[in-house]
């Protein structure tokens, strides 16, 4: 990836993180931890990978994205807003009464949201249905979905992966945000699902594990997905991530799963992000 392209993505991701923090602060609720860990993946996905058009969010030939870990809605909303699907100011209405930005994504309210999600384990099944439909209708498009590593405790995830492999859904790209934490603590302590790579491989998927905060590696992982197309296997990208990434006091803290920053914490977080932006701009 070109240096300036990478820096542009890094700057976009800073804006996304600001959006996550401001929107959760404004309503004093929401899930910043798992949104921050997913911010770089979503930044890359919408800027470089997915065929989607803010001017025509429902165009039939678009790629589809299903946020199976629906609680990371602040990250998705911030990305969609900065891509131009709706005004950035709307982020401050998140979770508020009569807002189009529900606590968990609603496809009938928010432009750019391809599926209503929130109940864990279901989004990946819907994504399977979309990928199957695309194949059935001979549409050359891709379906992307993002799961949490806590989410894969749900048995339905494995029903879906079995389905994806059985029906050879190589147009399906399943990413897992492996931040290692879920609400009650470390995933290895709450419910150990390791080894994820071997699990997904044994279910019949092509698996790649990358640093989920490194845009060069993200690019590589999607190249891996495209190289596997027409091989008859779904692709799984295991994103090694840090919960709360980009805000020092939130990083690797399970407590920030479902807690919003107060005004003081927001100010500190924004100043850290301002420093990060400055560094990126200086490098350019």
């Amino acid at each position, binding site marked *: 990836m070109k240096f300036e392209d990478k820096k542009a993505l890094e700057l976009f991701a800073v804006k996304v993180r600001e959006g996550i923090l401001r929107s959760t602060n404004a309503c004093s609720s929401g899930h910043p931890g798992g949104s921050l860990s997913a911010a770089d993946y979503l930044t890359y996905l919408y800027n470089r990978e997915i065929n989607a058009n803010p001017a025509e969010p429902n165009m*039939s030939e678009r790629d*589809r994205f*299903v946020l199976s870990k629906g609680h990371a809605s602040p990250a998705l909303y911030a990305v969609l807003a900065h891509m131009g699907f709706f005004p950035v100011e709307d982020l401050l209405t998140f979770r508020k009464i009569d807002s189009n930005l529900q606590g968990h994504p*609603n*496809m*009938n309210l928010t432009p750019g949201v*391809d*599926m*209503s999600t*929130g*109940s864990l*384990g*279901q989004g990946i*099944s*819907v*994504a*399977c*249905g*979309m*990928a*199957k*439909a*695309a194949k*059935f*209708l001979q*549409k050359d498009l891709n379906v992307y979905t993002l799961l949490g590593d806590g989410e894969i405790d749900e048995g*339905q995830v494995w*029903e*879906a992966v*079995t*389905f994806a492999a*059985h*029906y050879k859904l190589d147009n399906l790209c399943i990413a897992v945000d492996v931040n290692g934490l879920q609400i009650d603590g470390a995933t290895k302590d709450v419910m150990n699902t390791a080894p994820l790579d071997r699990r997904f491989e044994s279910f019949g998927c092509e698996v790649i594990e990358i640093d989920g905060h490194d845009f060069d590696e993200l690019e590589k992982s999607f190249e891996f997905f495209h190289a596997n197309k027409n091989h008859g296997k779904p692709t799984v990208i295991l994103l090694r991530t840090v919960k709360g990434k980009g805000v020092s006091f939130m990083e690797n803290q399970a407590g920030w799963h479902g807690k919003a920053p107060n005004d003081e914490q927001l100010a500190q977080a924004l100043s850290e992000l301002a420093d990060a932006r400055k560094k990126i701009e200086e490098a350019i």
Partner: protein
Amino acid sequence: MEGMKKIATRDSYGNALVELGKIHDDIVVLDSDLAMATKTVLFKKEFPNRHFDCGIAECNMIDVAAGMSTFGLVPFASSFAMFAAGRAFEQVRNTVGYARLNVKICATHGGISVGEDGASHQCCEDFALMRTIPNMVVMSPSDDIEARQMVKAVYKYKGAVYIRFSRYAVPIYHDENFKFEIGKGEIVRDGSDIAIIANGLTVSESIRAAEILKSEGISARVINIATIKPLDEEMILNAAKDCGKIITVEEHTIIGGLGDAVCSLLAEKNPVPVKRIGINDEFGHSGSAAELLKQFGLSAENICVKVREMLGKN
């Protein structure tokens, strides 16, 4: 009812799917390793490329159907009522229902007439579960002609639908001129002393009850409420006004089904005495369908007993 041809509405479902599939390319059918029993196998034989077995994974199947519907396909997803409405309730609620998707959930093997398999497979809760989901259309046909028309009607209807079909063969009492409409009840026999409101296989028993009662000088109106939601309120309120007393009959727990829907309506708009016949908050058990229907009070004879009680003529 004697001498009438009988057919199980699950067969009607399979046959109607084939008829529809011949006309409409956008119909796809999903099953969960029960195609032989749900009769989607008939569609599979005709259109193998449009029938997708999802294995024994009903929750995944419902959400796969949801995903397919977003591409303009019209998925019919089938399993037993126990698993489609029961096991996959939350998938129906949170994905199909909440996202307002055009998915047709067509469950067979509803009620105790499943028979020998016993309580684990006798779903008597599906109307109650499905009724609670906003915008969900909930239906159950009473014979072959109604069932086939219902399947065609839900293809035309845009939105989420739950239909319960039955494994037990029931008399075909409609003629080919019958016109089914979603949300419309049907006065099958007119009468003025009491109204018997039924659906599914209890309609033919109710007709038989009305014939027995007629010989005793009791005029019973029989109403088929094939669409439990949205309810044909006008027809039920007219029955309350004209007859003054109502009996509901359903192959379902008396909690949350047709009887409760009728009671809720009447309690608010015209309270008249109602007796609910159904499964009385208990599980079923193994036995032949005919024995079970009799034992659980879903026979014409028991309906007559309850009518006489209500009218003080026992």
